[in-house]
């Protein structure tokens, strides 16, 4: 066995190392041990070191005979996932210390999250459909545990149960699809699958396969779990689900579509076209009437997923760049929003829109960050969200998808309306009686500060886009 393979996988190996450290710490630190208090900083610092290390020493190449592929583009993608996890760690502190039962299990939280992330890494780096499947499963199972983390709360338990049932269901169908594809192509390696004719096996296999990833990205009609799970899961987990889980699946989809099924592009493009249209539209229409802010962001994230697919459908390197860039900006905006949601939830224990009334008066800074976040999601200049949407639309328009871009544009108008509902609640509606100032804890403040700066800076700093652009060249 060639141990050099593990060197190529050093990002995963590093992650496993942290995973083990946290596991060991959790096992051997007694319940009253003072180490338990420092789980959060230790996890954050270790993880930061890992991220920086990965950034400084990127690896390129394939390992294990093409099962595992890494390039500077995958490294970029993994960094985006890293950021999502880092923000989750920063934002989850108050929640993990809110009850004794949670406090006792704080170590588990980090271990399980890291396991999920490992699955996502594998999804991104997979060079083989089976590897991809393993990655998806590795990511999904711990995710269900995370969703049910507040197990004594009815809603959280329900979220976990729903997630595990539906994710098994979709995995089953996906696996079924993969077996069809194997039957048609005779191989599972991306590079070797060279399907040209759309016979029954291929088409059915492809659709089944896509439905599995579509479930993760929450494309309509595979999206129904999203709202219930987002609402029930602990807020930090929801943030993680809405950002990292979605991003990983998007990246995996890009690679699979263009590397494995690039030859079938004319076949899957119309499917994706329709999926995009109904996803954006339905996501928006549902978001209009939500009373709970977590449900609201669930539907907003569904329509955002539709926008992301716009870059995928364009199929050019410009489109890929736009997707990666979009996800980066989306991560900052969503993480900022969820950071505030969890701060508010920790203070009031509520997630309905009512608590956001008059937030602009009671906690002006948080309200301002929230406003920036939703403005970025809605795509208002000069925030990052404007540029990322612009690049996506430009990429799709360049491929002649004018109708699609037009539909997407119409939808941004609708989305602007409901995003402004949040701003209206915060700035125009009077505060509820005895509403108090909401304070984020220190770690959360750091995450919010980073997100805010990033939202403004990413739009202005064009080098980020250029940098990703240089990498995604030659994805096909």
């Amino acid at each position: 066995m060639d141990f050099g393979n593990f060197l190529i996988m050093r990002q995963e190996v590093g992650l496993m190392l942290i995973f083990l450290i946290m596991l060991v710490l959790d096992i051997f630190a007694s319940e009253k041990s003072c180490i338990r208090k420092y789980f959060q900083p230790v996890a954050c610092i270790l993880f930061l070191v890992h991220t920086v290390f990965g950034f400084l020493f990127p690896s390129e190449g394939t390992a294990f005979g093409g099962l595992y592929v890494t390039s500077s583009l995958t490294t970029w993608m993994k960094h985006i996932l890293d950021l999502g996890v880092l923000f989750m760690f920063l934002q989850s502190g108050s929640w993990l210390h809110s009850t004794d039962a949670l406090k006792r299990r704080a170590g588990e939280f980090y271990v399980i999250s890291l396991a999920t992330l490992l699955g996502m890494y594998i999804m991104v780096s997979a060079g083989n459909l089976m590897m991809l499947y393993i990655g998806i499963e590795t990511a999904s199972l711990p995710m269900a545990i995370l969703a049910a983390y507040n197990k004594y709360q009815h809603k959280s338990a329900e979220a976990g149960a729903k997630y595990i049932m539906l994710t098994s269901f979709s995995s089953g169908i996906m696996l079924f699809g993969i077996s069809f594809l194997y039957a048609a192509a005779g191989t599972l390696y991306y590079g070797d699958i060279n399907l040209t004719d759309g016979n029954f096996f291929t088409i059915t296999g492809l659709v089944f396969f896509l439905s599995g990833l579509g479930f993760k990205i929450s494309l309509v009609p595979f999206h129904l779990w999203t709202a219930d799970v987002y609402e029930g899961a602990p807020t930090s987990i929801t943030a993680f689900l809405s950002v990292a889980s979605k991003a990983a699946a998007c990246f995996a989809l890009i690679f699979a579509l263009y590397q494995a099924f690039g030859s079938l592009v004319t076949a899957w493009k119309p499917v994706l076209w329709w999926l995009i249209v109904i996803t954006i539209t339905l996501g928006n229409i549902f978001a209009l009437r939500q009373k709970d802010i977590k449900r609201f962001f669930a539907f907003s994230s569904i329509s955002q997923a539709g926008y992301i697919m716009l870059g995928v459908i364009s199929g050019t390197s410009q489109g890929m760049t736009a997707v990666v860039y979009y996800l980066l900006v989306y991560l900052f905006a969503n993480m900022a929003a969820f950071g505030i949601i969890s701060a508010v939830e920790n203070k009031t224990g509520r997630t309905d829109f009512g608590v956001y009334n008059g937030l602009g008066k009671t906690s002006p800074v948080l309200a301002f960050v929230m406003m920036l976040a939703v403005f970025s999601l809605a795509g208002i200049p000069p925030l990052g969200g404007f540029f990322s949407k612009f690049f996506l639309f430009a990429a799709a328009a360049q491929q002649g998808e004018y109708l699609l871009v037009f539909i997407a544009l119409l939808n941004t108008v609708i989305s602007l309306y409901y995003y402004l509902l949040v701003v209206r609640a915060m700035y125009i509606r009077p505060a509820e009686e005895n509403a108090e100032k909401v304070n984020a804890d220190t770690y959360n403040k750091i995450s919010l500060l980073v997100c805010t700066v990033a939202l403004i800076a990413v739009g202005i700093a064009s080098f980020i886009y250029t940098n990703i652009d240089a990498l995604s060249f030659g994805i096909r």
Partner: protein
Amino acid sequence: MEYSLAILVLPLCAFLFLGLFSKVLSHKISGIIGTCSLAVVAVLSYVVAFTYFTTCNVDGVWQTVMPINFEWLSFTQNLHIDLGILLDPISVMMLVVISTVSLMVHIYSMGYMKGEKGFQRYYAILSLFTFSMLGLVIATNIFQMYIFWELVGVSSYLLIGFYYTKPSAVAASKKAFIVTRFADLGFLMGILILSYFTGTFDFGVLTENNGFNVISSMQGISFMGISAATWAMTLIFIGGAGKSAMFPLHIWLPDAMEGPTPVSALIHAATMVVAGVYLVARLFPVYCFATPEVLTLIAYVGAFTALFAAVIAITQTDIKRVLAFSTISQIAYMMVALGVSGYNGHDGLGYMSSMFHLFTHAFFKALLFLGAGSVIHAVHSNEMKNMGGLKKYMPITHITFLIACLAIAGIPPFSGFFSKDEILAAAFMHDKIIFVTLWVVAGLTAFYMFRLYYNIFWGEESVHEHVPHESPKIMTYPLLFLALLSIVAGLIPFGELVSADKIPLHTHIEWGVATAGVLVALTGIFVARTFYRKKSEMPARIAISLGRLYRATAKKFYIDEVWYFVTRKIIFRHVSTPIAKFDKKYIDGTMDAIGNTTVKTSEITKNLQSGRVQWYAWVFITGVLIITVVFLLSRG
């Protein structure tokens, strides 16, 4: 001279600081912060001017220096917007003028605005204005100038509307903004035409080789029988005419007097209103060589405006309005001078005299406004009838005001004499009709200024609420300083420093023209003295005998009414109202329908989200199967 950047940065910082911390800072502190930053700016401007005029003359030609210039936005290889600092004789001269007058106004305002509500806001916007105006004059390209041009417009709007609880002030600020903005539209179109053909915004490229780039790139292109170059330069002039209150876009300036008086001194006398003149001067080689016909237009518009405004000034009774019309008239003087100017050597006398008059006028007109402010401060009224006999109560204001009146009337050895003489000489060389017009205007100017002077300080004392008193020292010192400048500014050998072709120009007093000018001014003063020094029936009788003409003049020739007719009766009623109706009924209706449909759809589809896992799985599998079937069928 990279430190010249500080001239821009300081007022901006002062604006941000005062604006952000206005609630925390006391009146006094914010006044001091604003004034101190301006004092530093003024000193820096003097240093820049001194350095420039001592070092930047190479082989007898004034050089154009760009200490800073970087590319800000690039559209194409050639077409890009830069930001930078351009120093040449006129921009350096403007730096000195703006920072000096602004400093005086800052100091003076600490007394004049004492105790006003929104004092911090006042100083913040004053700093913003100074920043924008300085940015405008040092712009390296026409687009940068346009950016600051609009910023100047905004800060002027904010300052005119400073007393925002007063409906008249709000109306005036809106009027000023809309009229100038309307003109700016012309400016922008001009910029776009110019840059479209020449592929550059840069002043240096536009004006090099006597505007060769403009001439060659636009050759043979015409629209509606008028060449593209003429269109572009006329449109740009319209922008300048808006800011510089040329007829018929002058209507905003008299109303702008609703702002605090020091603001009028700064913006509506010395700095912003000369921006149009400065713009024409900046592009002078293009005007002179590429589009001489536009230059002729400028000369005639200027001459007409000068006469027109001077006539109206005679009949006004609000002292600030008299000064406003006098400003219009004097700026028109500068425009005329540019209009009659040539380029090389002594032909460029008009250009030089225009800038010279801009320079001297800034000081004595600021002085007049600040003096008027001092008077208003004492009697709490703008109307002449509430004044009279103030000279024994307000000796310093009286003396300084007199000096300013003599300067503007063009009596030697005060500064106005020198600059006005050069303008008259330039006009005499170029066009006799214009010369005669200007000559008459010189007489009228002397007359209405001394009518103002005698009505305020001499004549019968009116009844006051309390005994008028001299203004505090913080207000009189700036008056004295400006009075000093009004006396000596004319002695500067201006032609050596500023000239059209940047080669020092040796000027001398044209005694023939000067004598004619001084004589007509003295006549004006003499008539004013006989009419107004003591109470006299003469003015009233003349007014009655002139009848309708007098009334028309007092009503400013009904130009405002003409504009109202055009805007309200024609545009609002016959164009805007139908459009608004259409908008409300059809556009809004469609939008409402879309909105309602969306909400209804959302209501209907809500049931999809039932919360039951079985249902979710069912939808999932149905979705997959439907897609597969559709897909298979569509593949045939």
